[in-house]
């Protein structure tokens, strides 16, 4: 026992000394922490963070809370119809985006098209993606007026940018061998894409599309608040009229619908991957 212990100690002594973090590294870490604190403090004031307000307006919060705890479903048919409208906006916004996103997604993939094609197409898609749906909604409301159609157009343009990127990344990750197999038989570029690329990326594309549809339903509820139609519009009206119980009912409908869709689409997506 003792012998084993001595042997163990001498073995430890033979090991090199444990590594020591150099002073420069430690100072750098300290500096990074200091900068982080400064940034956080700056952002606190910039965002006008004021927890005291929550206490000062406790009465308001209590009213809001108690009203929200008593959801009022009297006008449920109105809410239901506008939820359907929201879903319809998401369906068409997503579908149009996928139809346009497929060719653009392929034109973004530099293993399928030359770089001088992929580069400019990607920049256009970046622009579509960089601007939020809400901003697009404001633009399209100015163009086609208040209502769901403006919402569809807003989702369509933004989602095109998103799916084109997701689709092209799937294309760039394919196994090139089957494509060469098609090329070797004398197929055209389009045939290489259809027989070599599409079968490989289709399951991923379907999965991405369903995922985008889910998030477009969520976005579509918000679009209504700026005037893009659907349940968001009704929600906005109830909040402005201080009808918190009715607002709560609307929120419950939104939560149930979105959760239900998430479960359904997740199940479908599992089947494809």
């Amino acid at each position, binding site marked *: 026992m003792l012998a084993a212990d001595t042997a163990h100690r001498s073995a430890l002594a033979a090991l090199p000394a444990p590594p020591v973090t150099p002073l420069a590294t430690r100072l750098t870490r300290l500096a990074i922490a200091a900068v982080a604190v400064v940034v956080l403090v700056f952002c606190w004031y910039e965002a006008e963070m004021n927890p005291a307000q929550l206490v000062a307006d406790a009465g308001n919060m209590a009213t809001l809370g108690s009203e929200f705890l008593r959801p009022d479903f009297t006008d449920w048919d109105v809410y239901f119809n506008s939820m359907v409208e929201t879903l319809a906006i998401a369906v068409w916004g997503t579908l149009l985006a996928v139809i346009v996103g497929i060719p653009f997604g392929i034109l973004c993939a530099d293993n399928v098209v030359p770089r001088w094609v992929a580069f400019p197409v990607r920049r256009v898609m970046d622009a579509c993606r960089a601007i939020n749906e809400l901003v697009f909604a404001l633009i399209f409301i100015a163009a086609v007026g208040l209502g769901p159609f403006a919402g569809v157009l807003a989702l369509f343009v933004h989602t095109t940018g998103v799916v084109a990127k997701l689709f092209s990344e799937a294309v760039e990750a394919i196994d090139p*061998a*089957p494509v*060469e197999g*098609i090329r*070797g*038989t*004398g197929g055209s570029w*389009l045939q290489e894409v259809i*027989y070599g690329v599409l079968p*490989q990326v289709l399951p991923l594309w379907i999965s991405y599309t369903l995922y985008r549809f889910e998030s477009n339903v969520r976005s579509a509820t918000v679009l209504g608040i700026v005037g893009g139609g659907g349940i968001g519009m009704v929600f906005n009206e109830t909040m402005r009229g201080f009808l918190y119980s009715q607002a709560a009912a609307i929120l419950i409908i939104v939560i149930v619908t979105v959760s239900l869709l998430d479960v359904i689409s997740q199940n479908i997506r599992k089947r494809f991957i």
Partner: protein
Amino acid sequence: MAAALELDRVSKTWGAMRAVDNVSLRIEPGERVALIGASGSGKSTLIRIASGLALADATSGAVRSFGVGVQDKGKLSSEVRRARRQIGLVFQQFALVGRMTVMSNVLVGVLGRISGLRGTLGLFNADEKRTALAALAEVGIAQHAAKKARQLSGGQQQRVAIARALVQGAKLVLADEPIASLDPKSAKRVMDTLVTMSRDHGIALVVSLHQVDYATAYFDRVVAMNAGRVVFDGPASRITAAFLTELYGASAEELILPSQFAVPAAEPLAPVSSEPVS
């Protein structure tokens, strides 16, 4: 008659490495040729250049198949798609689309022959489907036609790839290490299928191989490459054990020495290249 495959002073340089170094080669219609050599000797690159999947250096001459241009001076010929239609390709990793059915994978072979629109839309007629099924029957896979390609074993997938070349109506089949990823039993089956196909349809066949025993057992003509050059081109009977040791050099361990070479052959080897084999 024009050669099944004609390479004229073809070179391919990757950075400082000459993967293929000034190779000229002529394969006659219906001829069966084994391409041997160690890993990195340039076999695969040569096959990719022959089919126009890789471009040769600009200093190279023309690559033609049955008189149709594949590439010239490092640029694809304008008739390359016509050339590719008569060249069937078989790859080490099969190059099938795993998610598509065996049948669809074989029908791809028809694409070069039918109108672009019909091919693009995938509207294959009953005749073409019958041809595909007949080809699958020929390689012994017909019963799996409706399965997804990836459900098949490696050897079966390789035979599907051969069926695709058959449906294509290829007059020359280039096979790049077709049995390198297969177990010995499947390997033999695939080699039998390739050679039978070549014999029955008069298809010229070029197969790159690691296994010298297969090269000598199945092929009359053997072309050996080393460091991008052709160092032997002649009947299999003239290959000696000494030459093989020289050819594979440091990588001799990857060589399965055929039993017939247990005793050194009497006939000395005369490499076609004027360069000594290093």
